[in-house]
C-alpha cells in the first residue's frame, strides 16, 4: 500500500476559489486576455445567429407571400422549340379540387419594349412583353407601386402596366399623364408600375398588357405561357401532382411545374454556406485569443514561482499545481466565452430587430461558443500548467 492511495484531488469548489483569487490578483491582464476569447466567440455566435435570423426572416417573408403558389409554364419539345400550353389549360386547372385561383400570363413573341421609337432595336433591356390576366396581382403576391393595374376596360386598350424591374430598366420612376412607351411598333400608355414580385420574378421584367389588347395590337396568339395557381394550403402537394397532366393531357412531360416558395427556401439555405468565411474569421480571432491566454498563463507561471513553491511546501502535489493553473486558464476562457456569447447574442438581437427579423440564435452557436472557449482554455492552459507542475519546490522557492 502506498501512503497516498487515498489522496483526494482538490474539490471543484477549492479549485474555483483558487483560480478566481489567482485571476483577481491580475485583474486587468486577465480581463484583456479574456477579451481576446470574447471577441472570437462573439464573432462566431453573431455569424451563426445573424445567418439563422436572416434565414428566419426570409422564411417568414416567404411564408407571408404564401407557400401555396404553384406555377405551370410551357416546356421544351424534343426538338427544342417551345411547347405551347393549350388555351383550355387554365380552365381545366381551375377544376382541380383544392385550386382556388388561376391566373395567367402569355408571352407576346416577337414584341419588344422601348422607351421611344428612336432606341435601336437590339437594346431590348431583356424585357419581355406579356399578356396578363386581370386578377394576377394577388396571386403572385404583389401590388401596384404607382397608378393602377389593368381592368376590364384598359385590358382592351393600348395600355400597359410595368413590372418593377421593367420600369427601372426603361428609366421610368414616375408616371406622368399620357406617358407612353413604344412596344411592338405601337405606343402603349402606362397605367401603373408594380412592386417587386418576389415569388414571380418573371413579372418584374415584364411589360404587361391585357389579353384582348395583346391580340388586337401586338398579334398575340392567345396561348398562356405561365399559369399561376393558388391551392389550398393542405392540398398543395396533391394539386402539384395533377397539374402537368391537367394542363397538357397530351404532353404532360413537356410542362414545367414548380413551387416558387420552395425554390426560395432552397436559396435561403444555400446562403448560409457563405458564412463559412466569417466563421473562419471568428476561428482566427479565437486562435489569437488562445495565444493570449497561453501567454498570460506562462507569464503568470514565471511570476508566481514563489506561490508555486509555497504551495508545494504546504503539501501540494505536482498534480495539484497543474490543476490550479489549468483551472485558471479554463476559468479565464470560460469568462471570455460567456462574455462573447452575450455580446454576440446582443449584436445578433440588435441587428435582427432592426431588420424586423425574429431573433434566432442556434443552440449550436450557444454551446459551440462556450465549448470552443473551454477547449481553447484547456489547450492554452496545458503547457503553462505543466511547466508550473514541473518546477521543483526548491527552484520555485529560490529568491534571486
Amino acid at each position, binding site marked *: 500500500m502506498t501512503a497516498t492511495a487515498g489522496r483526494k484531488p482538490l474539490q471543484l469548489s477549492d479549485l474555483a476559489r483558487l483560480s478566481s483569487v489567482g485571476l483577481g490578483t491580475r485583474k486587468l491582464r486577465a480581463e484583456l486576455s479574456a477579451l481576446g476569447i470574447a471577441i472570437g466567440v462573439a464573432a462566431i455566435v453573431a455569424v451563426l445567429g445573424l445567418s439563422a435570423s436572416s434565414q428566419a426572416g426570409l422564411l417568414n417573408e416567404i411564408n407571408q407571400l404564401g407557400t401555396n403558389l404553384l406555377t405551370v409554364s410551357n416546356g421544351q419539345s424534343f426538338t427544342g422549340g417551345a411547347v405551347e400550353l393549350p388555351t383550355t389549360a387554365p380552365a381545366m386547372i381551375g377544376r382541380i379540387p383544392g385550386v382556388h385561383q388561376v391566373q395567367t400570363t402569355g408571352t407576346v413573341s416577337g414584341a419588344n419594349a422601348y422607351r421611344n421609337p428612336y432606341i435601336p432595336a437590339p437594346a431590348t433591356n431583356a424585357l419581355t412583353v406579356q399578356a396578363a390576366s386581370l386578377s394576377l396581382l394577388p396571386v403572385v403576391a404583389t401590388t401596384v407601386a404607382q397608378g393602377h393595374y389593368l381592368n376590364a376596360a384598359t385590358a382592351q386598350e393600348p395600355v400597359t402596366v410595368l413590372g418593377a424591374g421593367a420600369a427601372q430598366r426603361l428609366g421610368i420612376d414616375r408616371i406622368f399623364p399620357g406617358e407612353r412607351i413604344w412596344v411592338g411598333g405601337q405606343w402603349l400608355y402606362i397605367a401603373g408600375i408594380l412592386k417587386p414580385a418576389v415569388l414571380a420574378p418573371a413579372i418584374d421584367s415584364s411589360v404587361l398588357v391585357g389579353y384582348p389588347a395583346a391580340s388586337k395590337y401586338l398579334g398575340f396568339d392567345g396561348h398562356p405561357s405561365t399559369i399561376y395557381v393558388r391551392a389550398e394550403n393542405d392540398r398543395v402537394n396533391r394539386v402539384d401532382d395533377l397539374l402537368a397532366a391537367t394542363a397538357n393531357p397530351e404532353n404532360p412531360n413537356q410542362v414545367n411545374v414548380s413551387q416558387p416558395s420552395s425554390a426560395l427556401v432552397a436559396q435561403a439555405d444555400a446562403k448560409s454556406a457563405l458564412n463559412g468565411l466569417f466563421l473562419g474569421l471568428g476561428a482566427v480571432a479565437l486562435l489569437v485569443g488562445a495565444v493570449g491566454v497561453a501567454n498570460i498563463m506562462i507569464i503568470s507561471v514565471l511570476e508566481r514561482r514563489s506561490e508555486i513553491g*509555497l504551495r508545494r511546501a504546504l*503539501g501540494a502535489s505536482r498534480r495539484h499545481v497543474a490543476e490550479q493553473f489549468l483551472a485558471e486558464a479554463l476559468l479565464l476562457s470560460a469568462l471570455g466565452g460567456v462574455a462573447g456569447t452575450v455580446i454576440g447574442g446582443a449584436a445578433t438581437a440588435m441587428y435582427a430587430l432592426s431588420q424586423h427579423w425574429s431573433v434566432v440564435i442556434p443552440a449550436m452557436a450557444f454551446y459551440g461558443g462556450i465549448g470552443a472557449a473551454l477547449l481553447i482554455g484547456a489547450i492554452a492552459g496545458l503547457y503553462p500548467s505543466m511547466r508550473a507542475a514541473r518546477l521543483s519546490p526548491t527552484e520555485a*522557492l529560490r529568491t534571486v
Partner: protein
Amino acid sequence: MKYTLPSTPDSYAVAVADDFAAGGAGVPVLDVDNASRSYPGEPPVQALREVNLTIGQGELVGIVGPSGSGKTTLLQLMGTLDRPTGGRVQITGLDVATMADNDLSYLRATRIGFIFQQFFLAEHATVLDNVADGLLYAGVPLKQRRQRALDALDLVGLAQRPHARPTQLSGGERQRVAIARALVGHPAIVLADEPTGNLDQATGQSILALIDQLHQAGSTLVVITHDHIIAERMPRKVEILDGHIVADTGPAAPDDCRLRPSASFVQPPVSGHHSAFSIADDPS
C-alpha cells in the same frame, strides 16, 4: 521500508500522538543521517557534506551559520523539498528516499510546517484564508479549515483580525499569519528559515517570543538564522560552516529548554543571569 500515512487528518493526529506519546522514546521526529547535497556545476557545489542531525519531539533547535554555509539547503532536505545526493533523511520514521514525489507532498501537507523569511502570503486573500490554505492539501473541507485557522490565529494573537488582508498588516503581524499557517495542521515539525530576517529588531524579538511560546506548548521547531545572538538563545544550537556541522550543543536538559532572554533585556549583560522572560512583551 514499509510506511503508512493515514488518509484522514483526524486519524493522522491520532497517529502522530501515538508515535510521539512516549516523548522521544519512539522514533525521532527528524533524522538526518550522513546526508550530503551537491549541486551540479564546474566544479560541483558541495552545499552539504555528511551532515548528521537528530531532532526529537518537543525540541527547539537553532541552526546558525554565515550566508552560503548551507543552512537553506539543510532546511530543504529536512522539509523534503529536496532529496539528498548522499545519505538518508527520515521524517517521523519515514525514509524520504523510498517515497514518491506525491507521497512526499502529502507528508509535507500533514507533518511539516514551513515559515519563510519572505512570509509568502497571498495578498488578495484574507488572513483567515491564508492560514486555512495550510490545510488545503491535507484534504480538510473548507469549513473545518477555516475553523481551525481561527484557532491557529488565536494562538499567534491575531484572532481579532481574520478578515484583514495581509497588506493591512505590519511585518510582524504578517509573519504571525505565516506562523499560524505553518501550525494549523499540527505538524510534527516546524521549519523556519530566517523567520526574523525581514523584521526589525523589536519585531524579531516578538516573533522569537512567539516561537518560544509554541515550543512551550509542545511544538517541535527548527529555526535557521545567520544571527549568533539569536542562536545563542536557543536551548539547542547547531553551527554549520561550509556545509559541515561544526558544533552541536545536543538536546537540551528538561530544565533548560526555554528560550534564553535576549541580551538587550539582561542587566547587566555580563552577569549571565536569566531574567524572567515574558512572551507578553510584544512590541509588534
